[in-house]
């Protein structure tokens, strides 16, 4: 399996999970929220500063159908994460091995060591 085929397959799986399967996820409180409720400190939670976001709470503002609303939010979130994480890792990675001329320029690097 080529790297490209693997990454594309993986991304399709991720989009399917975030866009479709997420609708069927449990809506029960998670471990921390459950403990906060049981132990009586959930009320110190304050209003979220990003409550105004069009995707707050994994829904899409203006979309009535809950399945579509969550699906769109999931797909948008996945693509934003992919763009940011993909961008950061492409910038950070080591380049090469490349054709000779590139390597001759390597000593110019001032990485400070």
């Amino acid at each position, binding site marked *: 399996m080529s790297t490209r085929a*693997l990454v594309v397959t*993986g991304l399709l799986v991720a989009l399917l999970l*975030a866009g479709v399967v*997420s609708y069927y996820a449990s809506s029960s409180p998670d471990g921390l929220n459950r403990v906060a409720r049981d132990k009586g400190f959930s009320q110190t*939670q304050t209003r979220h500063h*990003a409550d105004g976001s069009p995707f707050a709470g994994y829904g899409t503002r203006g979309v009535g159908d809950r399945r579509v609303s969550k699906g769109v939010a999931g797909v948008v979130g996945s693509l934003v994460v992919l763009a940011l994480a993909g961008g950061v890792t492409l910038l950070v*990675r*080591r380049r090469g091995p490349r054709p000779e001329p590139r390597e001759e320029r390597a000593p110019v690097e001032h990485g400070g060591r």
Partner: protein
Amino acid sequence: MHVPDGFLDAPTSVATGAVAVVAVGVALRGARRELDDKTAPLAGLVATFVFATQMLNFPVGAGTSGHLLGGALAAVLVGPSTALLCMTVVFVVQALLFADGGITALGTNIDLMGLVTVVVGYLVFRGLQAVLPKRLSLVAPAAAAGALISVPVAALCFTGLYAVGGQADIPLGTLAAAMVGWHVLIGVGEALITGLAVGSIVAVRPDLVHGARRVLERRTLEVRTSHGAPT
């Protein structure tokens, strides 16, 4: 385990934020050693997969749910430094776009669900790799074990932070017991998903998996000796 705004006081949130900044700075340097042209594409996939899977809360009984944290998964697949960068991207997007996890608590969430699960998951994984036979088939189970341990440790670290800067007066013993209790169950789910995901990629492209490198290096040596004199 996304900590909302208001659970921890301001000084604690500032401190966890500072730890997160330093950790991400170190990870930016470390990721350069882990990422090359071949492995970089996998990192974007790992972050996307962690985001998607974190939307999938699974029930752990008695009206409580949990979702994958993903630090161990990411660390085994792309290396611990790159993993922390991937997790950080996920938490930033969740906080800003989805109002999931507080904004003043962003550092706390990067530390607990990113740094702690990456470091603990990876250390357990590497520890097991050191004592287990060097077989490709053991990469996924070792990753799953790291995932299993990483979740309750993160829960315990939250309890520690709450002891320092919690906004309510909660007896620590009962808080620790409740946090660890639920998160051991969530850790089982974490282990299953991690084992499945790592196992799938090891099955098709073990050469891309950071945590399989040592096993493959050994295998390469074996092949050379069986072929006779190397050129």
